């Protein structure tokens, strides 16, 4: 399969460091960013990838060259950076991170003055500036300095999250918590958050930000074997797995089973809707369990194309109180910040366990309707997408169609979602049904058509 080792597009710049993602490319992109947001303070941080230091200096060079002041926050989770950007009225922010991508990759995540991803039109404008290479250039008298602030971002983030849970009662319970920090940007903050702030008895692995990633970066059941073992060995009440930039959260229950990300999101949605009235926004690929939970609270669910920025845009438009992307472990709680935040997830789950006195497996068992979810991907040639979509439509004349992102076919007892990946030349396939047999039946039908 063709690999995308460098991608420059509306979602920014991402690639394999070295031959493909070079410091010059990163600096040019930062120059485009600095030109776009204007001369002012820009927050710059990174995850723990080995290429982070090199790229941070390149980005810093590009920002300074356009007359921006660089506020270096060092190694920080992406949500922490986003919160800090919004709270300090900076012109924007850049996080040097490839999120859950493998260690050889890196990328730039770009934020506006509110600490949000740019909308589609802003991103297009930024890309135009990049391709035109018409950057603003600061003279010696206009070049501003680099300041650094490594402490405030973490403090702000912790304060924002803990405002929404009962800290004293959580502390009193002294939960036994297991953590796999993947030696990522959250390593320091997560220990502090769980141990000092929430009074948990913490059993942490891979929380050394100077070490390489000890496992695949994406927190999934098949990559979290060490966490599951740790939970069982230490008889932990709950286990948390993070990605390198601390926006995604995976959860392991006390029996050592890693929950579906959809179920984690559903538990948090349930907790938030119990505490405050409001609607929910999730992407098209997120489980119907969210609809069931929202219906239980008499609330509406809005669906968007896949992508954090899409979910956030819709959340702002609908003034939703909670949202996320179940498929990839993203929980978005606007009272903290319009971004995926693993810390919000941890806090709400511990709070829920405290209030109900139930274990994680009990909570999932009792509160969440059962669904069978299947996913897959197929290599795909450009130009074949149209016929494939048409064939799908024709095969399922009884389905309700949604064409906002690829094609989603919704049935009484399940759904199929087929879309082209933004980052790889593949088609992603997601199927869900209440009955296990029905789910496999739908999957086999679609797989047949795609071949």
């Amino acid at each position, binding site marked *: 399969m063709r690999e995308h080792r460098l991608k420059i597009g509306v979602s920014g710049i991402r690639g394999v460091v070295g031959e493909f993602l*070079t*410091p010059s490319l990163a600096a040019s992109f930062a120059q485009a960013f600095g030109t776009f947001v204007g001369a002012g303070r820009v927050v710059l941080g990174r995850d723990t*990838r080995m290429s982070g230091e*090199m790229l941070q200096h390149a980005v810093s*060079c590009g920002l300074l060259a356009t007359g921006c002041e660089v506020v270096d926050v060092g190694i920080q989770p992406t949500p922490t950076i986003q919160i800090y950007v919004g709270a300090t009225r900076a012109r924007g922010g850049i996080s040097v991170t490839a999120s859950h991508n493998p*260690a050889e990759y*890196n990328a730039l995540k770009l934020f506006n003055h509110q600490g949000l991803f740019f909308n589609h039109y802003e991103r297009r404008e930024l890309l135009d500036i990049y391709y035109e290479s018409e950057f603003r*250039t600061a*003279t010696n008298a206009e*070049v501003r300095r680099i300041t650094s602030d490594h402490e405030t971002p973490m403090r702000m983030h912790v304060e924002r999250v803990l405002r929404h849970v009962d800290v004293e009662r959580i502390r009193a319970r002294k939960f036994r918590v297991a953590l796999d920090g993947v030696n990522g940007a959250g390593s320091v903050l997560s220990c502090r958050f769980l141990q000092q702030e929430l009074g948990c008895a913490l059993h942490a692995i891979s929380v050394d930000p100077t070490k390489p990633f000890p496992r695949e970066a994406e927190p999934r059941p098949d990559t979290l074997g060490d966490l599951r073992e740790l939970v069982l060995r230490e008889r932990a009440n709950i286990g948390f797995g993070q990605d390198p930039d601390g926006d995604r959260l995976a959860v392991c229950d006390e029996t050592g089973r890693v929950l579906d990300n959809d179920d984690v999101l559903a538990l948090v949605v349930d907790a938030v809707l119990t505490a405050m009235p409001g609607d929910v926004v999730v992407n098209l690929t997120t489980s119907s369990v969210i609809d069931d939970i929202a219906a239980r609270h008499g609330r509406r669910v809005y669906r968007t194309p896949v992508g954090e920025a899409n979910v956030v845009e819709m959340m702002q438009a609908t003034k939703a109180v909670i949202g996320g992307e179940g498929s990839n472990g993203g929980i978005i709680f606007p009272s903290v910040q319009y971004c995926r935040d693993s810390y919000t997830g941890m806090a709400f789950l511990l709070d829920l366990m405290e209030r109900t006195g139930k274990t994680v497996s009990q909570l999932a068992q009792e509160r969440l309707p059962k669904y069978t979810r299947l996913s897959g991907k197929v290599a795909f040639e450009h130009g074949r997408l149209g016929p494939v979509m048409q064939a799908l439509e024709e095969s399922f004349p009884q389905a309700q169609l949604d064409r906002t992102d690829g094609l989603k076919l919704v049935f009484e007892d399940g759904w199929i979602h087929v879309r082209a990946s933004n980052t790889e030349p593949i088609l992603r396939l997601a199927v869900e049904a209440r009955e296990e047999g029905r789910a496999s039946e739908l999957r086999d039908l679609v797989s047949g058509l795609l071949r």
Partner: protein
Amino acid sequence: MGLRGVVGQGLEASHVMDFAAAFGTFLEPGPVIIGRDPRSSGVMMREGVVSALLATGHDVMDLGIVSTPVIQHSIQRNNAVGGISIGASHNSAEWNALKFFGARGTYLSTAEASELLDIYHLRKFHFVDYTGLGRLYTNEAALDRYLHDLAAVFDLEALRQYKIVVDCCNGTSSLILRRLAGQYGLNFILINERIEGVSFAHEPSINASTVSLQLAPLMKPLGADAGFLFDIDSDRVAIACEDGTPVSEEMVLPMIADAQLAKGPGKLVITNLSTTALLEEVAAKHGGRVVRVPVGRQAAMDALATYRPEQIAVAGEGTGAIMMPQFRFVYDGIASMLAILSLMHERGAKLSEIVAGYPRYSILKDEVPLVSQRVPMLMMELNGLYGDGLADMRDGLRVSWPERWFHVRVSQTEPVVRVICEQKGEAPCALFEALMDQVRSMA
């Protein structure tokens, strides 16, 4: 050889990164030492240099704001494979530049420089994968080790008797001098000592006219024994005497050559074709010899490479940039200052007395806009007109007679033809006027 320009108006971030990436590709594997002068744009340039060097697999030791000679010393001391000095030396604040150094802390030879340029132009940089990237670290001890090296060569204790006024021009010299005062008890009065990024108290030009405007008037009121003016990165120096007279920058090299040759008679003085003929007189006094090469550091470095270090007394230019073998041939204004002060101590004489002890040479300089196409014809014509003198055509045309010479050459940095003319005693006004007329009419 390096990269120089006005930041934001010619010198862009991409040039900095590409040049540093070319340098990182050019160097053998190993650590690289960098530092910068205090210009605001230096931070931007450092960020680009650091990322490009890390990306080409080099560990980077950043010395922060330091003089260029300290960077060069640190390269030698730490067995680094090279170094980059970020700073525009004697240019005004809006300029900045990169200077590249090889493994011994010396400027690149012509062959090395042209290889570096080829890599830059091809843009085929050796970016390593994520497992091979370099790491950035700092070194606080660099300045102290440099001072230690200076103290090993000069009798600093003996220099405590002097009251020394220094115009730091808001550059890096104050950092070194304050520490020299603190650790070795030297008595400095520093002016314009604050490190500045945007505007310097005056142009950092190292010449007698800046000295006469800025430094010389302070000498008598302060009762100082000697005055020194440094450029921003402290690699060259200009001088004022205790009686308030400025010393021409042309005099720095002859004085240091005199001191060096006194300790090593018969050795060589390496300088360029545009530097004062007083050097030949000084060298002859000690049985030494002057080797003249085309103008520019490159030619000086190539010349140095053709002799053994112990054959050479000193190398330098009429601009006040001097290299001594004790410091492995690094242009070093601080070392030059200490050499002058040591000369005062050894002779037990005032600075004005030492200067007065040399025969007077008068030098005239001017320039004419360049028309490149006419240059060869101009040189041929001049050669014909002044056929009675001894001609040297390695860098434009230099014609010399006993006690008199002129040099007409094309500048490497600006689009001008430079005309320079010197005579022992009175200024060679008639010859200079005639030359200027001829150059103007033909250039």
